[in-house]
């Protein structure tokens, strides 16, 4: 199990309670679960990394327990009870420095748990119907919450009495009617205080807590169906949003225009994440597929059928196309490369022009392979 789990670069939580790992380089998917004890109560609602080195995964399930999954060992090591299932299921999960755990449930209670104690250290109420809680990647004690008729609130977990920032609802429309409000997902924009949210009324808002304005500083809309998931692209200037009909688009936060749609999805989007360094975005949802699109040319790169409806998704920060880091596997892969070379050598040469073309291509490939080998060697050295 350990070998398998170390290969995986994408992790998904399904509605049937199975944790799934996908290795894109080897085009394989694994189930990490005891298949004889499946139950709907273990439906995975939230996923996050347990430590910065990404050796542990935290899995939040519907019955109110948070399980720790060790990537090294490839098995669940620990189960913690975090709150009552009657409060509703998890809408967010995060880890603070010093191995403290932050949970948020749909009824709006945000709790901070220390390692050993059974009672929460801090507890705060973020209002009713919280759809999502997210942690700021830079200031780890800052979290944002939002939900249905419950605007964006940014909390400092060290000072839990008052939110740092509370968003104001949009201005009444031209008929003086109140605008409905429903934050479905949010993300912190790095290198600034700004927060981007997507709403159930097909809008994307950008809030800026550093200014006195509490209403959104930028408002854009996409499509006509509720937006369910959002993810910031590595640059921080574009945001990828997905809706309940499986339409995914990239929006530019500077101009407020759609800069491209990602095609191929057939069901509603539940999870969306951009890779922190590579220009790829992974999406999963009710159509039971994991899809990986390139952000550069918006082409579908991978499509994996995973048999259950998928709720959430987590990417490892290493290169998703990366081969495994274990030495033995490296060797295996190398052998495969050599076999490929043999194949190329034994292949017949068709004609003059064809030959030239082929030579070129083989040369290029060889160059690539050499580069790969070099990089592998480097990695080995690094490990040593």
């Amino acid at each position, binding site marked *: 199990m350990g070998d398998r789990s170390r290969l995986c670069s994408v992790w998904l939580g399904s509605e049937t309670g199975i944790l799934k790992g996908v290795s894109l380089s080897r085009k394989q998917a694994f189930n990490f679960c005891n298949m004889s004890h499946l139950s709907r109560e273990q439906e995975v609602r939230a996923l996050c990394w347990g430590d910065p080195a990404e050796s542990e995964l935290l899995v939040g399930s519907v019955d109110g327990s948070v399980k720790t999954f060790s990537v090294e060992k490839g098995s669940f090591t620990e189960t913690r009870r975090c709150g009552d299932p009657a409060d509703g299921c998890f809408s967010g999960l995060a880890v603070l420095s010093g191995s403290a755990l932050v949970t948020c449930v749909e009824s709006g209670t945000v709790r901070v748990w220390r390692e050993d104690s059974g009672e929460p250290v801090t507890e705060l109420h973020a209002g009713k119907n919280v759809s999502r809680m997210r942690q700021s990647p830079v200031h780890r004690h800052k979290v944002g919450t939002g939900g249905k008729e419950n605007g964006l609130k940014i909390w400092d977990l060290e000072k839990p009495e008052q939110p740092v920032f509370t968003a104001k609802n949009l201005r009444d429309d031209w008929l003086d009617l109140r605008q409905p409000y429903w934050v479905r997902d949010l993300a912190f924009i790095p290198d600034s205080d700004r927060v981007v949210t997507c709403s159930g009324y097909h809008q994307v808002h950008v809030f800026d807590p550093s200014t006195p304005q509490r209403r959104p500083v930028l408002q854009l809309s996409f499509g006509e169906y509720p937006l*369910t998931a959002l993810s910031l692209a590595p640059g921080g200037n574009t945001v990828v949003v997905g809706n*309940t009909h499986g339409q995914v688009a990239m929006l530019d936060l500077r101009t407020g225009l759609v800069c491209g749609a990602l095609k191929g999805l057939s069901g509603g989007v539940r999870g969306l994440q951009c890779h922190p360094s590579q220009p790829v975005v992974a999406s999963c949802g009710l*159509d039971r597929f994991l899809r990986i699109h390139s952000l550069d040319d918006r082409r579908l790169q991978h499509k994996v059928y995973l048999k*259950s409806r998928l709720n959430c998704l987590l990417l490892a920060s290493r290169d998703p196309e990366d081969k495994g880091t274990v030495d033995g596997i490296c060797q295996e892969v190398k052998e495969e490369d050599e076999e490929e070379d043999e194949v190329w050598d034994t292949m017949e040469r068709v004609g003059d022009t064809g030959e030239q073309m082929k030579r070129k291509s083989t040369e290029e490939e060889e160059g690539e392979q050499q580069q790969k080998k070099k990089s592998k060697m480097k990695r080995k050295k690094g490990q040593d």
Partner: protein
Amino acid sequence: MDITEVPVSQDIKSKKSKNKKTKKKRVSPEGAAKKSGADQEEVEVKMEKTEAEAAFPPTFSVSEIKNKQRRHLMFMKLKQEKRKQKIQLKKKKKKEREALGDKAPPKEVPKTIENQRVYDETTVDPEDEEVRFDEGTDEFSAYFNGLTNPKVLITTSDRPRGRTVKFCEQLATVIPNAHVYYRRGLALKRIIPQCIARNFTYLMVINEDRKVPNGLVLCHLPDGPTAHFKVSSVRLRKEMKRRGKDPTEHFPEVILNNFSTRLGHSIGRLFAALFPQDPQFVGRQVATFHNQRDFIFFRFHRYIFKNEKKVGIQELGPRFTLKLRSLQKGTFDSKFGEYEWVLKRHEMDACRRKFQL
């Protein structure tokens, strides 16, 4: 200056001379043709005779003939010739087969877009534990475990007219325990809680456009899913040829054909749960949902065993065709509901050999 000009003029002259030569050359065949102008008719006659033997240059095509009548004539001849050849080839093959007798190679299966279907990775493997668990605990599990009995409410869009009303009535005779209600302008989202309170397991809404039924919303209660179909080619009982007597009240058997993918399985289960689980074989009635190229054909038959080998069937009607538009999780909510599958035209049906169900 003069010195420089001279060679240029020479060049031009030389070019001219060349042109003249070429012109002459070109002219000569034309002239020959003019000379043999009297022969032209003869040539044409010959052409007619020999066109089957491809007396024309290889690039000749019938469409190049400018005279319409002539073109038509030639085309007809071309077609006849082709057909003759085809029949000859067929006869030859048949003779060969007969000569070979038992040793004849097996007949080739004709290529259709169904048997050339692109492999779908979601095709359900009955051995698969995960899919079995997923299906075993889904919204229909209560029905398939025998905990609930189906009870169906059939209604229409507002103010139904013409065929839609009759279609509803006939559907209600096909589906046991179905109740037809007048819509009375009620919103579906307000009907659903009332239906749940009265233990209905299905809500079926037939939409009409200009007196013709064209849509079907099938909502499983109490917690979804909801499927939206396009309805076409509805044939009511009255319009049916050689139809049997009106169906009896026995529970019919249900046949579900070709629902092979994961989505197809969900749709198949949705249809299966419409009918009670234990069919009454005394009634000898069968309802068939046949999926072919993503179109679902509904037929309702009565059968009879004539002897050990022969079975007679008699169609009872109505018949109609469904095509899935969307499958939504949860009860009907077209605005905020999450869709499990949505038909995206031009994106999904770009490949004609790819099927969703």
